[in-house]
Structure formats: structure tokens, C-alpha cells
């Protein structure tokens, strides 16, 4: 009995000494010389489902320093940190917006400091885009009484949801041309009965006016400067391959398509940078193509925008971004989705300039325009 008491006392002391949890500090790596021509950017790491490990990295062009995991340092008071699975990152006005899919929110931060301003509660949010002082967020969550998703309109000053419009099932990325919002619907919750449409929403009335039939399981959507929409179809992962389609926003009809299993797409001027992944049943391997499409005449210019052989080191290409000024190319490697990823910076000519370790599943870039 005495012994038990003694033990309890000893244990109490031991427990008192247990380390308090601490804010995990960010890490800095000097990756390059300072270069004010290039843009600073944020990179959102998705983090694996359920791990609550979405994280924010920042590259500063003034210092050439890459800072990994800055959110916690800047915002130590956010309960359970940035959240679970980051899915999109954008800047509008003076604010930085991060869509944190499984934390059911859009995190709103200051553009230059990443200091938290607040959050917009949106369950299962996917992508965010902006137009005339409003933010538009697509959500997988079922609009009430339907099996379809919705797009929420948010006032970027008050950060309040102003309107909602029901679109197709499990909407993904959006693009805006001439007061119209185009939404890629995936229907990913009901394989093999995927959605196969693009919803057209009139931004004035905020009603869905049309659906354009494209292909199953749509995902990415980017507008070019000629009024065309580039939209990717992920296929069914079994028999129907993924593909890239071009929609003419004037006719709202498919005008072109590419047999490229496009995983990500990024626009700069007349160039659409894409990478595509094809699985070969012959070699049981993935073949990755890093292509550039000229969006003016819709032709593939190159099938390898990485030209120095670095692509062989990239296990799983994931995020993709082009510096709006220098046209430096950024590609991330998500590796096995469990380890920290790698970010590669290539020159416009496709030669590697530097690389750096990121957070888990590095994915979404936004450049900080001064």
C-alpha cells in the first residue's frame, strides 16, 4: 500500500515534467539568390486525409528564402492549426484565401503576412475564384433537398455568404468569362454514374442557366484569353481514359479535345502548361508528359517542358505553376503522399534552377503581386 502511494507520488512528478505541446516552428532554406524580378509565392500543402496537416509555405523573392510551414508561427492561436486537406489557394485584394476541404472552411488571411483574418464556414469546399468583389466557392456538400452541390457567393469585405446556387454533383474548379461562372461537375460520389456537365451560372441573377454536356468526372477548368474554357475529364479510372476538352464560351459547345490524360493545367498568356499521366498495362508503369499547348491555335507545342532530365526524379507530379513575369516553371513532387514533397523550380527553358523540401502533398500555388 505504501509502495503504491510512493509510486503515485513519483508518477505525479513524472507527469508534471511531461513536455507541453509546442507550436511547431517554421523552417527556412536559402534556395536561391534574391531576385526581385521573380514573384514571391505561397504554396499550400494539402496534407493527408484525417491527419490535420494542411500547411502553408512561403517563398520570398527579396531574400531567396523558402519558409516551410509558416502558418503555425504566424497564427499560434488557431485551434488545431490550419486544418485537414488544403484544396485551393488564391489571393484577391489584400487577402489570402485557403480552401481547407475537410475542415469545412475557407481560411482568410492577410496577403503579405498570412495572418489570420477569419474564416468562412463552407462544408466540403473545393475551389475558389473571384469576380467584382465577390468570392465563389464550390462545395461538394449537397444543396438542401438535392443530391447536387452548390457554389456559394461570398462578399470579400464582410466575408459573409450572400447567395448560393445549386449546380451539378460534386463541383470542382470554376472559371469566369463575361459575367458567367462555369463550373466543372464531377459526380465523384456516385461512380460509375459520374456527372458529365459544366454548369453555366449567370452571375447577375446567380442562377444556373444551362448545363453543357462534356464528359464524365470533370475536374480542372481554366479560361484562356480567347474566351475558351479548358476542362479536364478524369475518366472512370477503369475503361474511360481521362481527356482534355476545349469549350467555346460564345457557343457553349465543345470545339476541341486532346487525348491527354491531364492531371493539372496552368495558363500563361498563349500557353497552357499541362502534365498528364498515362498508365500502361504493358509496362505497368505511369508515363508522364509535361506538355505545352498553344491556346491560340490549339496545338501541342512540346511534350516535355522539363528539358534537363529532372523529370526522372519526380515520382508523382502534383502542383504546377508558372511565374506570371519570369515564366519560371514550378512543379511539385508529392512523392508517396506520406512523406514531405519536393518543389522544383525550372527556368522558362525547362532547366532546373533549384529544389526544396515542402510539406506533405505540395499542391496549390499563389503568386504575391506587389
Amino acid at each position, binding site marked *: 500500500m505504501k509502495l503504491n502511494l510512493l*509510486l503515485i507520488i513519483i508518477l505525479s512528478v513524472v507527469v508534471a515534467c511531461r513536455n507541453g505541446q509546442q507550436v511547431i516552428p517554421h523552417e527556412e532554406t536559402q534556395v536561391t539568390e534574391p531576385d526581385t524580378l521573380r514573384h514571391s509565392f505561397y504554396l499550400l500543402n494539402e496534407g493527408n486525409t484525417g491527419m490535420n496537416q494542411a500547411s502553408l509555405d512561403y517563398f520570398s523573392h527579396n531574400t531567396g528564402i523558402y519558409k516551410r510551414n509558416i502558418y503555425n508561427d504566424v497564427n499560434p492561436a488557431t485551434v488545431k492549426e490550419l486544418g485537414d486537406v488544403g484544396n485551393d489557394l488564391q489571393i484577391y485584394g489584400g487577402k489570402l484565401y485557403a480552401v481547407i476541404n475537410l475542415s469545412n472552411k475557407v481560411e482568410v488571411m492577410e496577403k503579405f503576412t498570412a495572418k489570420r483574418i477569419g474564416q468562412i*464556414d463552407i462544408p466540403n469546399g473545393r475551389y475558389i475564384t473571384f469576380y467584382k468583389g465577390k468570392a465563389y466557392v464550390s462545395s461538394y456538400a449537397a444543396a438542401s433537398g438535392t443530391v447536387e452541390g452548390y457554389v456559394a457567393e461570398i462578399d470579400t469585405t464582410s466575408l459573409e455568404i450572400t447567395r448560393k446556387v445549386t449546380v451539378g454533383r460534386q463541383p470542382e474548379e470554376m472559371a469566369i468569362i463575361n459575367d458567367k461562372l462555369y463550373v466543372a461537375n464531377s459526380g465523384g460520389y456516385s461512380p460509375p454514374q459520374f456527372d458529365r456537365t459544366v454548369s453555366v451560372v449567370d452571375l447577375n441573377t446567380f442562377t444556373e442557366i444551362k448545363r453543357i454536356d462534356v464528359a464524365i468526372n470533370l475536374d480542372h477548368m481554366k479560361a484562356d484569353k480567347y474566351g475558351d474554357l479548358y476542362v479536364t475529364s478524369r475518366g472512370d479510372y477503369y475503361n474511360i481514359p481521362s481527356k482534355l476538352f476545349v469549350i467555346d464560351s460564345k457557343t457553349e459547345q465543345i470545339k476541341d479535345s486532346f487525348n491527354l490524360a491531364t*492531371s493539372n493545367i496552368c495558363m500563361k498568356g498563349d500557353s497552357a502548361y499541362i502534365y498528364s499521366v498515362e498508365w500502361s498495362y504493358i509496362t505497368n508503369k505511369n508515363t508522364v508528359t509535361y506538355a505545352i499547348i498553344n491556346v491560340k491555335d490549339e496545338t501541342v507545342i512540346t511534350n516535355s517542358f522539363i528539358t534537363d532530365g529532372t523529370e526522372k526524379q519526380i515520382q508523382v507530379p502534383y502542383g504546377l505553376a508558372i511565374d506570371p513575369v519570369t515564366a519560371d516553371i514550378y512543379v511539385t513532387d*508529392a512523392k508517396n503522399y506520406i512523406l514531405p514533397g519536393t518543389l522544383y523550380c525550372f527556368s522558362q527553358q525547362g532547366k532546373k534552377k533549384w529544389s526544396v523540401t515542402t510539406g506533405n502533398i505540395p499542391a496549390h500555388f499563389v503568386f504575391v503581386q506587389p
Partner: protein
Amino acid sequence: MLKLTFICLLVSCAVAAQDTAALHTLQTVTIFSAKSNSVTPVQTLNGVALERMNSLSVADATRYFSGVQLKDYGGLGGLKTLNVHSMGSNHLGVFYDGIQLSNAQNGTVDLGRFSLDNIEQIDLYNAQKGVIFQPAKGFSSTASLYLQSRKPVFKADEQTHGKVSFKTGSFRLINPAVRLEQKLSDKVTAVASSEWTHGNGRYKFRYTNGTYDTTAIRNNSEIDAWRIEGGLYGQLKDSSTWNIKTYYYNSSRGLPGAIVNNVFQRSQHQWDRNFFVQSSFNKKIGNRYNMLLNAKYGHDYVRYRDPEIVTIDGILMNRFRQHEYYISSANQYKLTSFWDVVLSGDFQVNEMTAVNLDHFPIPTRYTTLAALASQLHFKRLDLQGSLLATIVNEDTKLYVAGKNYRAYTPTVIASWQPFTNPAFRVRSFYKNIFRMPTFNDLYYGTSGSPALKPEYTKQYDAGFSYTQQMPGLWEYLSIQVDGYYNNVTDKIIAAPGKSFRWMMQNIGKVDIYGLDAGIQTALHRIASVQTDFSLKYTYQRAMDMTTPGEVNYKDQIAYIPLHSGSFITHASWKNYDINYSFIYVGKRNSTGYEIPENYLKPWYTSDISLLTHFNYRKTLVKVSCEVNNLLNQYYDVVINYPMPGRYFRFSVSLNY
């Protein structure tokens, strides 16, 4: 290197053991019962010791074993699976009254569903049970956990007895149980038992990073579960024995999910129905031949509802149904007084269907097992060897079936008493075995891959046991030490596959160097106070060997602490018992890569229970009161699945 150190350790202990006195049979009630005759490392919890422990389920009790990690999602209804020697919970065979509880869908058994109310004994064997006379299934796992339900026992003049108990406490637990034993004739006895477990499962948890400090209530954690069990035990004229058991479990539970930023409440729900009926028949013919027949039919049904996913048909509702048919024949023949041979043959069919799951191929698996085993037992040396042949035929109604598979896997076990004093024994084993990919591994959605091969484990173990009665202050001393090297190859893990989508693949490799040590002792009665102590320690260096050159190459795999251990002490005085248990789990990482983001700090819990018993008329009344996690430590076993802080349990039972 480690092996060498280990041999040195063995030698030095051997020298120490030489001058000790002769062994007396250990008769004291201890915490972990000693089984000095086992040739493989075994840890046992039974009877009174089990009753004293602060445990509601089998899962709670197994935490005290060395060499194991209980993966615990927390709370009354949280999934609890056991990982032995870091090889993965899929490699553990769980046996209920000698017949395996299997789940072809996910390959694991949720030990949180097995209430201790009807369990008499729990044995954990590394490699396999140290007796060769067993079904072929007994040879087919990396490690085996045997749960033995209470058998009816009658005194000479008894016809009927039983037990009524009631437990309550934190989580709004209401847990009444009833058990009835009836002697039907001289040769046949019957037992029936049932219990209801109900609770809202709510508890406080706390997360802090030093700046934020938040305490919240775990919710969507309610459980409502029924268990009904019945058994008939009989003996025939020729003294052969038979039994038939039936088991039904029906539960409805909330799935509280991960606690992540902004999401502290979830709405997923699961319903389970498990039913099995099993029977055994054991007959001796002459002095040389012994026969054991087993048969089982099992049915598992799971319904899963996720209101957060709305499909084209409405809220997602998955239904999974499994059938299992099993027969086994084990035959032992004594060739000579020191040489036994066993031939066992098992055949099992597993079927599974799923509703609302795309591309599910509706598989059937036919497993044929044949084991040939032999044991030589001399005065001071036991040698066992077994060879298991496994033939798996996989068939599906749709799409692509998994591969058929055939393998021959050996086990060699030796146990040696080097000195005249039987207190000290040295033992060693080698085992090569595999687990088949589960139906989920093979067929679940786009991540399933029918091309999977089995996942192999190789185990090399050497250890000793020393059990000695002693004069003087200490009543006895029992030490068990095992050092081991294991490796896992073709480990089935999810990784980017076809078009970089998650896909199950045979790409993992793990090397494990470990040490399990346990010491148990008791003081001689002082002023009618009986005390005993158990201390267990586990060292496990489990290295990820998957990709040479990768950043996590040779890092500790996820959720395995380098150091862990338990301490239990107990004192009894007259009708009173006090039990204290302590568990320590050292630092771990959550993903298999050692960086600050993945760091999980050590945790340790102290549990105390007080028990008393008295007779009221002809009824034995037992009352107990438990305080668990006495120091109210908040911790996660699985990241973002918070465990309860301090909680209480009270129980009373009437035994007549």
C-alpha cells in the same frame, strides 16, 4: 550485433542461474500466470487477475502484455486492434475457444468488442501455440491471441449457478450482464450468457500547443451493443468430449472520427451483426491416437452510413455481408513416448458481398491448409517443427479475381533446460509465415488491387524463462526475456499507383529488432497482506527499409514506440483488493518519418481499482470501483483520435 549481445546476456543469466535452488511448482495466484511448459513465448492473463484489472474489454487487458501495441481509436466504441512485434495487426490470429475469429474483409479483429465478462483466460503466443496438436489454422499466423470463454464448473452437489452483474460509470455506461450455468446430466452442461453495453461514450478531451488550449467533448460516440452466447459441453462414454457454441453480437455505434481544425463533430454511423456457431469434438483412440474435429459457420454484416456524402441515390449507405464456413481435423499420433506427430487439415470458404460499392467483384476465397508437425520431447529438450501448406483459390462473380496462391511455410521451435534446475529454460524459434491480402486490399474501390501477393513475415527469436520459488522475503521470481529480429517483406501499403491514384501495393519492407522482458515477483505475506508485482518492458526498433536513399529510410515506422512498458501491482488483505497498473508508451511518429510535424509525445496512464467481496446469504457479492487514467492525462494513441482523460467505473456482481 544485437544477436551477439543477446547471446552474451543469455550466457550471463545462465551462469547466475546455476546456484539457485530446485523449482517448486508455482501455485500462487499471480498477475500473469506462469506457463513454464510452453516452448514458445506466452503471456497469460486469467481468472482473478483478469477480474482485478481495470478492463472492460479484451483490448484493455492486452495493453499490459509486452511486445504489443494496441491501436486504439478511443472510447467505448472505438476500434481496438493489436499489433504484435510491429508486424501489423493483420498478422495476429485471434482464436475464440480454439477456433479462429477471422474477417476476410479487413483481416483484423476488433478486440474492443469482446467483453471480459465471459472471458476466463487470454493467452498471447508469439509464433504459435506451443502445442502441435491443434487445427492447421493454429500454425497460420505470425502471433496468436487465444480467448477462452468461461466453462461451466460445478461442485458435487450443484445443479445450477450463475452470475448477475452490473457496471456503470463514465460515458454514461450501462452494462448489465447475466450468466446461467446448468448441469443437464452427468455428462452434459449448458451455459448461457448475455450482456448489454450502452453508453453515450462522451468524454472530455484537450488539445493544446501552448498558445491555444481547448477542451471539448467527444461526441457521436454512442454505442448500443448486445451479446448473447450459449454453449453445451459434453462428455461421451468413451470420455471423448464435445462442445457446441453459438455467439451473437449486435451493435449500433456512432463513429466519432478524427478531431481536426473546425470539425469536432461528425455524423457517420455503423451497425454490426456478428453471428457464429462452432463445434468441437475431441476423441482419444487407444493410447497413441488423438483426434480433434472443429467446424464453424460465421456471418458478419456491417452497415455504414455517411450523411456527409450524398450520392445520386441519397445519403451514402454501404452494406457488407460475409459468410464463413470452416471445417478442421487435427490428428495426433504418439510414435514413441518422446515423439509425437500431428497432421491437421483445414478448409475454409469466405464469401463477401457489398451494396453501393462500385466495381465490387463479389469474391469467394477457398482456403485449404494442411499442417504436418512433429514434436520431440526429451527430459531437458523440446523440439518442434511444423510445415504448413496453404492453398488459396480466389474466385469472383465479376471483374478480376485475386491471384490463386500456394505456399509452404516452416516453423522450428526449441526449448532447452540447460541445467538440472528446471527453473531456467532457454528457447528459440524461427517462423516464416504470411498473411493473404484482405478483400479490402484486393477489391475496395479504385485502391484495391487484385494483383497483390501475400505479405510475408520472418521471425527469429531467442529467449529464456526463469521461474523460481524462493525462501525469505520474496516468494518467487519469474523472469522472461526474448530478443528477436523480424522482417516484413512485400508489406501491403497504399501508395501512388495507376495514374498516381492510391493503390494497395506490395512494396513495404520493415526490419524489426526487439526485446521483450518481463519480471514478476511477490512478497511473502506480511500481516496477512499478499502483494505481487509485474514489470514489463519492450524495446522495438522497427525500421522502414522500403526505399534505400529515401528520406525515411531506416526511420521508425508509424506508431511504434522505441520504448514501452507496463507495471502492475496488487495487494490483497482479507476481502479487499487494490490493484494499480501503469502503462508507458514512449514517443512515436504518426507517419513513419521522424519530423516535428509527425511527433507524438509519450503517454502514460495510471489505473487503480478497489475490490471487495462478501457473502450475503448464499450469494457471493463482488463490488469494485475503478479510476482509470488517474492523473487525467490527455493523449492520442492514433493521431487526432483523442483518448479519454480520467474516468470511473463501478461494478457489482452477484454470484450464486
